[in-house]
């Protein structure tokens, strides 16, 4: 017997095994059954969708005369979207968000960074100092404490002032100066230290984007969430939270 005919052999011998699937489905019980039924359901939905698509293709659809969204005046018609960020939210929306203290963050789950990861212990005589191994932000007027009293060392090589912030709707990235670290999800200690890890919410200076509030005031600071591991990449990438 030839190799490739092996597949068709049972069909030749026993005929079309109709109702095979339903027999199997009826007899199964337990977790196996649940998984099997889930799979079947997904297949059924897909099949229905393809059938509907085929139907649509065959019949002629009446032209839905809906005027498209996004009306622009004649002088903007031949031009693409703006190169500058436009006004996005009302004053009410801003106020409401700030009151609730919640931001729609893009990375809801952030891996908590343990102390041993972030801080490296230095045992010099009896002084127990710890060196931060992640990227951090220190303000403009930062001066180190006297060596006897400093507990945390933030090396200069790991201090950053600017972040590459992407605007989610415009898909444009700007290099904006950091104003401060708002919240580090792993621990409040890291927030006060200014440690920046993936998922940290930072505040950036957006005055160069030219955003204006409804009252006519120019917005100059906004929150952004860090999306990469800065200690591995050497730069801070963040997404603006609108």
């Amino acid at each position, binding site marked *: 017997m030839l190799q490739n005919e092996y597949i068709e052999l049972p069909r030749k011998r026993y005929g079309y095994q109709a109702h095979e699937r339903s027999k199997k489905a009826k007899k199964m019980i337990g977790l196996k059954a649940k998984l099997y039924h889930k799979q079947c359901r997904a297949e059924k939905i897909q099949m229905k969708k393809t059938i509907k698509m085929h139907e649509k293709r065959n019949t002629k659809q009446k032209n839905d005369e809906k005027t498209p*969204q996004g009306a622009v005046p*004649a002088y903007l018609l031949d031009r693409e979207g703006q190169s*500058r960020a436009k*006004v996005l939210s009302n004053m009410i929306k801003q106020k409401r968000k700030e009151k609730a203290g919640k931001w729609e963050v893009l990375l809801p789950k952030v891996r908590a960074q343990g102390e041993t990861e972030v801080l490296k212990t230095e045992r010099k005589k009896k002084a127990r100092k710890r060196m931060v191994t992640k990227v951090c932000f220190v303000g403009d007027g930062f001066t180190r404490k006297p060596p006897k009293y400093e507990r945390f060392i933030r090396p200069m090589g790991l201090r950053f002032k600017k972040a590459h912030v992407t605007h989610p709707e415009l898909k444009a990235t700007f290099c904006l100066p950091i104003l401060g670290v708002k919240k580090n999800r792993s621990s409040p200690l890291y927030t006060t230290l200014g440690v920046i890890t993936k998922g940290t919410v930072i505040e950036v200076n957006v005055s160069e984007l*030219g955003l204006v509030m409804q009252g*006519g005031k*120019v917005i100059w600071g906004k929150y952004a969430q860090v999306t990469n591991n800065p200690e591995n990449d050497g730069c801070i990438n963040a997404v603006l939270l609108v």
Partner: protein
Amino acid sequence: MPSRLLAQEEAAVPDVQRLLVQFQDEGGQLLGSPFDVPVDITPDRLQLVCNALLAQEDPLPLAFFVQDAEIVSSLGKTLESQAVETEKVLDIIYQPQAVFRVRAVTRCTSSLEGHSEAVISVAFSPTGKYLASGSGDTTVRFWDLSTETPHFTCKGHRHWVLSISWSPDGKKLASGCKNGQILLWDPSTGKQVGRTLTGHSKWITGLSWEPLHVNPECRYVASSSKDGTVRIWDTTAGRCERILTGHTQSVTCLRWGGDGLLYSASQDRTVKVWRAHDGVLCRTLQGHGHWVNTMALSTDYALRTGAFEPAEASVNPQDLQGSLQELKERALSRYNLVRGQGPERLVSGSDDFTLFLWSPAEDKKPLTRMTGHQALINQVLFSPDSRIVASASFDKSIKLWDGRTGKYLASLRGHVAAVYQIAWSADSRLLVSGSSDSTLKVWDVKAQKLATDLPGHADEVYAIDWSPDGQRVASGGKDKCLRIWRR
């Protein structure tokens, strides 16, 4: 009489330096004969003297210029900054200012909602009685200005209403949509007048009516479209009278001049001048390096308002009175006043960041090239007295240029995003600008500074207009509401 006034002054202060001056008007014509004045004479005294020489019934407010520098405090101070020979006769150029004064708008009196999509175009009627707005929800709406409420909603278009234009007598409104159709509306009833004018294959970029002083019935309207043609329509018959082809790309702007010439600017970098009554191409003005976005004529405001004189405006705007002949004469006299001696001047602004000043009826070479902007120019407008040109650009600034020579005057900075549209007040003293940063700003042109900031819109401001009677400013934008601003 003037010499008696001056003799009195002379007796009071005998040892002030005196100069021989000669008054001259803007066109270069001399007024009276030279006579001498003390160096510390102020503009008020000069005004008295000049009005006496002009023999006017009501004294006109005047501004005085010595070699392009305005006399603000006294003649002496202005001369200090310039090297002037005191032996020769000094020429002082006088410019009559508008008699009436428009006050700056400071507050938003109402926010008119009703449109369900962005408001794309806004226009006051020539007398300032009606306000019309076109929007992305395909309707044209008329608004009652005395109560600031909606008046009529006109449905008929099937795509965004891109441009609207009032006839110079204020009795009809033409609106063009993105499908290339033009409809005419009656503002007093809100109903469509006549037939839908179809013919263009792509969207309408501009509409322009025939001037009132040529035909007081306001019968013909010209439309420009992305398909590269200009069509002249007969509104009473409801059909296309003439098609002007010649442009190879979209026609972005259209103006019907008062001398029987039609001007069209296009993305093919040229401006074409056509004869209106038979559609013959007269001239092609070349020089721009990129799309020509916008154009302005020195007599634009006079053509727009027709027989309405802003100085005679009352608190409640009225329709124009008088027979057709009277209207025609009034419109013609106003047009000639603004035009002055020479032919009409044209300014064109382009994507190549420069403007050109042309005298299209005479020459196909430009008079001047005005450079200085750092991004594309979206709109240019002559002031109603045609002395100043204002240009709004995407580089967030507005630049002022001299209307006669094209010389740069000043930059108005304050917006934080692209400036989309500007509008002049009827007395040419104030300018309002609407921008992508959702604010409007009123600028004092004489001081070249910001007069008032008008925030309030929630999103970009797409269209603004100042009513010809100077009382209101209307602005519409992406946030779908129309705002009216008053003093």
